[in-house]
């Protein structure tokens, strides 16, 4: 199992500003994942963060809007840049050791953009 600490747990931000979300894992993992859950919707994968290489972004998500850092095997950050009200969502960090095992999630960051 893995324990994931994610912060902040919530924030209210002005449009046009940026917010950086931090994710700390209690063990070393190769891949970390960032998801978004818009109100009333499913969890959508934003990107996969690999240590030592560029993050891999899913269709519809770009690095300029969601830059990701992965400085080591236990830590990652996701920045939501130039925010608009449409970015109001829950953002979740996740890790999964290997295929055919469960994934673990942080408690999420509830972002409201006004």
């Amino acid at each position, binding site marked *: 199992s893995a324990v994931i600490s994610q912060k902040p747990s919530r924030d209210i931000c002005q449009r046009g500003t940026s917010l950086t979300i931090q994710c700390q894992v209690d063990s070393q993992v190769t891949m970390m994942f960032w998801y978004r859950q818009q109100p009333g919707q499913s*969890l959508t994968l934003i990107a996969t963060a690999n240590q030592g290489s560029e993050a891999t972004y899913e269709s519809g998500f770009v690095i300029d809007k969601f830059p990701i850092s992965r400085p080591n095997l236990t830590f990652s950050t996701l920045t939501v840049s130039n925010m608009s009200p449409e970015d109001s969502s829950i953002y979740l960090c996740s890790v999964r050791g290997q*295929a055919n095992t469960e994934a673990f999630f942080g408690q999420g960051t509830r972002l409201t953009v006004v």
Partner: protein
Amino acid sequence: DQQVKQNSPSLSVQEGRISILNCDYTNSMFDYFLWYKKYPAEGPTFLISISSIKDKNEDGRFTVFLNKSAKHLSLHIVPSQPGDSAVYFCAASGRGVTSGSRLTFGEGTQLTVNP
């Protein structure tokens, strides 16, 4: 393209009865399926999973059934308890180093268990 679908946004059952949550998928490359429970203001919590080589997996009150030919899986909770009230997400993953690690989620079903 929604590859994992949960067609019922909500389900309400009486305490002590069975809850059945359904999930359909379209991608035949999916070979591992998971159910998560999510309370408000918390991250999803893993409940139970099943590999495509099985058709049933049981863990206490929770049983997951997989029908590969129909590309359908279901989660049975027996007996249902008020503390089970939460949003339940179905998720799937495929083969390969990358696709085997990423999860594709359904839209979720809000389960309400009434005392």
